[in-house]
């Protein structure tokens, strides 16, 4: 595959992530921070995010197991951190699930929390997989002009 074709594929893949509502403007902001001195900045940031946030996922899972009764304040605090981390990479759908989870915390709904957490984990894993594929393709395609703004 020639380089231009690869780059078009990369751009199309990225556009698709925006079209599916998986990423928001923050991802573009991160790309704008990428330059010759930091050519892999976005991938590094995203990798770091997944490393750090997986610990939060484990903590939330643990807190959800402590069911007599559920400590909604603790869950809300953990989810606030997780949401902040997700927002920082532009993970739009994951962020929305975080908000839903927090609403269930405030409502004191254990079942709501459990259900929305399962959905959140699915969204989290799905985005991670897609971003890994995106970065792999981007590395193969080589450096390109960054930050093509999506509509």
């Amino acid at each position: 595959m020639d380089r231009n074709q690869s780059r078009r594929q990369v751009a199309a893949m990225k556009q698709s992530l925006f079209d599916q509502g998986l990423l928001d403007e923050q991802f573009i902001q991160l790309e704008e921070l990428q330059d010759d001195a930091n050519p892999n900045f976005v991938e590094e940031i995203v990798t770091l995010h997944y490393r750090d946030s997986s610990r939060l996922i484990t903590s939330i899972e643990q807190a959800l197991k402590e069911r007599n009764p559920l400590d909604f304040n603790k869950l809300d605090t953990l989810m606030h951190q997780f949401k902040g981390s997700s927002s920082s990479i532009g993970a739009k759908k994951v962020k929305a699930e975080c908000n839903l989870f927090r609403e269930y915390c405030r409502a004191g709904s254990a079942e709501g929390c459990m259900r929305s957490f399962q959905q959140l984990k699915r969204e989290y894993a799905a985005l991670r997989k897609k971003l890994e594929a995106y970065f792999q393709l981007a590395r193969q395609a080589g450096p390109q002009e960054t930050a093509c703004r999506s509509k």
Partner: protein
Amino acid sequence: MKPKNSSSQLKALVVDDDRVTRMTHEALLKKVGVESLASVENGKKAVDLHCNGQSFDLILMDKDMPVMNGVEATKQLRSMGIRDMIVGVSSSRGAENVQQFMDAGLDHFYTKPLTVDMLKAIIDKI
């Protein structure tokens, strides 16, 4: 009064418990030309830096952090007579939360995520 400096002469401190946010804010600061940077993961470490004699032109202070949060850290810094520009940066949007943070002694507050344009506006005020 401090003369208006170019951003390359400014010294900035990022205070945030989230590593990704610290890296992003550092990159943003470099993008607007700030060359001298430090970052710490909670308010206590920010206070300790000042106790050890360090000073900064700009502090980007997160609100919710373990050990010492941004509200407490800002109060302590101001009570120590620290006059650095302290900008609160938080995802907490509620008016009460923002007011509590401002009352602690912030110069400005911005909702996360911070952008290059926001940072340029902040630096223009230094």
